[in-house]
């Protein structure tokens, strides 16, 4: 029986790192370490000497791992970007999910698959959560701006809230813009004139 595989997850956000770690633990009995700091990343990874490194493809520090994948000095283990020509679907699934895996050369595909499957599922979920969060935040910000624009119109034109909103909406339709954009323009202009 071969020894436990060790996995390093490179992830700066603690919450996301915890999610990935949890799903890897469900997938099997691995030794897992999280590296949050990107400064000196290559050194931190080689100190741990892992079998597999997982990193978000959106992380700009990923290029540092490319260098490691090439280095095969006496103290470093050869690392390769995960490539399994037998199973291109698995690699493609990982790329589509936005996770890149670096594995020690020679590690068998059947030992990597559960790790990659767990990571892919979790990355899909994390990216969806991130998109939702960004959309919610934007919507809230837009609502604040629209409220301020309505307030400005109510004061300047002496109309009620519904009339102010109707005016914003009509202007937006006439100009082929979104209500939030018109509201933002009004708030900016009012700020400049104040």
């Amino acid at each position, binding site marked *: 029986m071969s020894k436990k595989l060790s996995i390093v997850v490179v992830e700066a956000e603690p919450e996301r790192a915890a999610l990935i770690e949890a799903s890897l633990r469900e997938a099997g009995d691995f030794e897992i370490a999280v590296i949050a700091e990107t400064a000196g990343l290559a050194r931190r990874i080689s100190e741990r000497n892992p079998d597999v490194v997982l990193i978000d*493809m959106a992380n700009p*520090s990923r*290029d540092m*791992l*490319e260098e490691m994948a090439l280095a095969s000095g006496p103290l470093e283990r050869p690392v390769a970007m995960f490539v399994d020509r037998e199973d291109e679907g698995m690699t493609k699934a990982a790329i*589509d999910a936005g996770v890149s895996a670096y594995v020690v050369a020679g590690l068998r595909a059947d030992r990597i698959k559960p790790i990659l499957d767990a990571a892919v599922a979790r990355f899909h979920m994390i990216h969806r959560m991130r998109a939702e969060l960004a959309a919610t935040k934007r919507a809230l910000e837009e609502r604040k701006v629209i409220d301020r624009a309505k307030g400005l119109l109510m004061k300047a034109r002496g109309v009620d809230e519904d009339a102010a909103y109707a005016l914003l909406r009509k202007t937006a339709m006439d100009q082929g813009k979104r209500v939030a954009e018109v509201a933002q323009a009004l708030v900016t202009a009012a700020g400049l004139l104040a």
Partner: protein
Amino acid sequence: MSGAPISVGFIPLVDAAPLIIAREIGFAEEEGLDLKLAPAPSWSTLRDRLAMGQIEAAHMLFPMPVAAALGLGGFGTRIDILLVLSLNGNSIGVSRALAEKIRANGYEFDFTCAKRAGEALIAALDGPLRIGVPFPFSMHAEMLYHWLGALGLKAPQDLDVRTVPPPLMAEALAAGEIDAFCVGAPWGSIAVETGVGELLLPGTAIRANAPEKVLAVRHDWAEAEPGLTRRLMRATWLAGRWLARPENRGTAAEILALHEYLDLPAELIERSLTGELIISQRGELRRVSGYLEFFEGAAAYPWASQAALVASRLAARMGLGREEAMAAARAICRTDLYRRNLADLGAEMPGAREKIEGAMTEPTAVATQSGKLILSPDAFFDGWIFDPSNP
């Protein structure tokens, strides 16, 4: 925008300009393309997106498709070079502490002489030089190995070339993780502005008119989509010609500065387009002719000899067979498509696929199909030459 949709990945750098201008000034639309530009967070991710078909084409470091042809990094998908997007544009910078020592050694930062700058730099070192580059397969790394190697610094014992993403370069310098860097515009200027470093040399001082970025596509895609390939090449080449006109530089800087592209101050971007660089916080200005070139001297022509040169060096460093590596690299330079797709636009057509690299110290006239073409100097600072037929 109407036209056939095509998505092209890029890294937010000044030399992505031909793609950005092709979209924004309308060259892509004129060619019937709806050019969708997708920024990538890193070169490795850009390469993998291209290999896996998430994008059709990409802005790439010249040595990346060459490395792919040699089976180094990525998935082993063959990637072809359609044309060269830009020449040079990089600068070498050092930490302020190192700059002070170099000045004390009598080098006055003339920003011209690679030999004297390199000797002063080497004399100022207490240990190995740790120098950051954006990617292991980059012209930055090739230039540094050539320049410092020629001056006696041996890799890896004296010279430690490390990968640091450009947006993190200034930070790595400030944290003392590296002593120096070689990086594309505008990141050198940003290191000066943030006060962490000074610029020592432009890339042009090491080699004039060195190829830097290319327009790359999957070989299979270029074969399957000759019409789209043609339109993409034409739109990009026309954008390069537009960028070469000095009166367009201000506009180009403003467009590149937009949030969806570089999202950085236009003034910093314009420095690299005009070649007027501020090299220190004291505001010292240096003018560099041809600092970043998009067009002159048949800049876009993908010389197979240049790919053979890079392949020969990578093969030597990685312990691969040199002849095989050079042959694989030559094959990906699509001079055939360049001829077929750009001739009627008036693009200069060198008669040969290869030249002796580094042999021209002066602008040189060469034979072309339509008469004569003036090629720009391509000499290395130390007079080294590479004869692809007799390396």
